[in-house]
């Protein structure tokens, strides 16, 4: 029952994300969705996953979303209006196809399940940690390298427009040699 109630609110909130014209309202609905999703994880004994969901998505990523929306002032009057477009039908059909594909995979094994299947200590940080650093250590390390590449890449993209001493020195050298002017 707790699960059902929270899941209902999550569904409403995620509808709100696409239904609101105001970007801030949509973002807030997304915050609510992420937060309640974490509570859903709690009810399914996945505490660590739930709390990480709050830390990463609700606490960090959505704050950045709001930050950008406010900085660009997308909220309020400048609501995004969409024109009628035949592509909508096409997109709807594709979306429904994807939904039924996923639903067929998810719903079938879930039939007749009324209680939580996972054992009590399933989502505890101890077990998660020992699993990550024993059986799944390679995927874990690969994922962290991927993230590192992402960080370095984003710094590179952002750094290009900042006056840096190194760039200045390079430019000075170029100017002396008469290159690039």
């Amino acid at each position, binding site marked *: 029952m*707790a699960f059902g109630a929270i899941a209902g609110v999550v569904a409403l909130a995620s509808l709100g994300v696409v239904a609101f014209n105001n970007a801030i309202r949509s973002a807030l609905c997304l915050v609510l969705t992420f937060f309640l999703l974490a509570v859903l994880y709690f009810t399914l004994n996945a505490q660590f996953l739930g709390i990480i969901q709050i830390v990463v998505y609700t606490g960090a990523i959505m704050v950045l979303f709001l930050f950008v929306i406010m900085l660009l002032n997308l909220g309020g009057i400048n609501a995004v209006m969409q024109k009628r477009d035949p592509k909508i039908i096409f997109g709807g059909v594709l979306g429904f196809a994807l939904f039924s594909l996923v639903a067929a995979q998810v719903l079938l094994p879930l039939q007749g399940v009324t209680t939580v299947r996972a054992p009590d200590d399933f989502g505890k940080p101890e077990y998660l940690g020992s699993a990550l650093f024993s059986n799944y250590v390679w995927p874990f390390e690969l994922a962290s390298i991927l993230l590192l590449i992402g960080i370095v890449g984003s710094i590179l993209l952002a750094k290009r427009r900042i006056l840096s001493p190194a760039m200045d020195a390079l430019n000075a050298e170029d100017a002396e040699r008469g290159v690039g002017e």
Partner: protein
Amino acid sequence: MEGLFTNLYAFEWTRDNPWLMGARVLLLILPILMLVPGFIWWERRLLSWMQDRIGPNRVATLTIKKDATWAPKFLRGSKWSFWGLLQPIADGVKLFFKEDITPIAVDKAIYFIAPAIALFPAFALGATMPFGPAHKAGSMYALLTPVADVPIGVLYMMAISSLGVYGIVLGGYASNNKYSLLGGLRSSAQLISYELAMGVALASIVLASGSLRMSDMVDVQQGPLWGISNLPIQNWFIFTPFGFLAAVIFLICMIAETNRAPFDLPEAENELIAGYHTEYSSMKFAVYFMGEYAAMFVFSGIFAAVFLGGYNLLPIRWDALAGTSSSGFFHAMDTLNVVLAPLWFVGKMMLGITFYIWLRATLPRLRYDQLMNLGWKSLLPLATFNFIGVAAWLYAKSILGPQGTWMSLAVMVGTLLVLLVGYGIITKRSNDKDFAHRTVDMVDPTPRRSVELVDTGAAS
């Protein structure tokens, strides 16, 4: 109703009496609510004392008229002053009766819920904080505190404190005021930056204590200092080298997270009027105010639980000193320490609040670039080096075994020193490079090369 509770049993921490659950929640929230006026009084008095003023000393003055017939003769005409203790009540009455103005151009729905959103994390934050010995069998504190002794205690605290930004950002946005918006934006940038260093500082303590559960952390701190088994001093993390570093980092981040001076940029009054709560009046402003004080209180509690030995009065192992004897001074002190645990804990929280006020009276507000430099270039690398130091220490300890306590301690101190020196060299060099470019010239800024010219590829 029954069905709801059986379903809620999926939550590990609700697996007991729902009445007891309610009692624990009330025992957390009511003291915070009742102590907030006290803090406001204490802040005003202490601040005025530090600033060589008198402060509020008039409310709560008792005078008996010279011709009062009801009073005994020797009391007539006498006057008692209670240091203005009732001033917060007068403040509260004033806030209640002020006109509640809602500007026309605000985003109504968000404007109304923003203070409530700001209050929520301040109270929810303390849910994993143990006020008393939660692990001691037979102790009544095991039933009453903490609200939820979850195995993810510290992470929960990080998660909830990261939600604290929403109340401020949304309030700033909904007010439809440039200064409010700027305050909100500053706040979101500040909180995100300092959360990281705070998380890494806490992670090193999690490594050292081997648990994310807050009551476990306090238990670890009750052990002998530095693992030397015959030392009758408790192993409070602030006494260990890595713990001291982590404590300093955590303290700075905690002040930044609660938006207090010297990190009160979101409400810098000489730049932003009052920042994010410029457009709020009456009780909505009061709710923001209360949220800030409650957050300060709870953060002080977390600092006390993680670094200052939680609910132990003094860092002395009374139980080890008392040994097996069930009488005598040491045993009496041990009993006192356990029975009055919440009192010591709240006392440590008060110390935290006093520290906040002291800082506010002492330090000038940081500039925005200083704030960002401190967070990203000093605290985060320092916390990371500290983390590596703790890991090295734990590894050394696992190799050397329990006999090598001094050796492993030396390894830890050595690692920390090496890391600190390395850190100092790195920051020195990077700061020197940046200095010429990042300082703000107040008078006659020299013309610099424009940003577009740097992109040489596009320029040519």
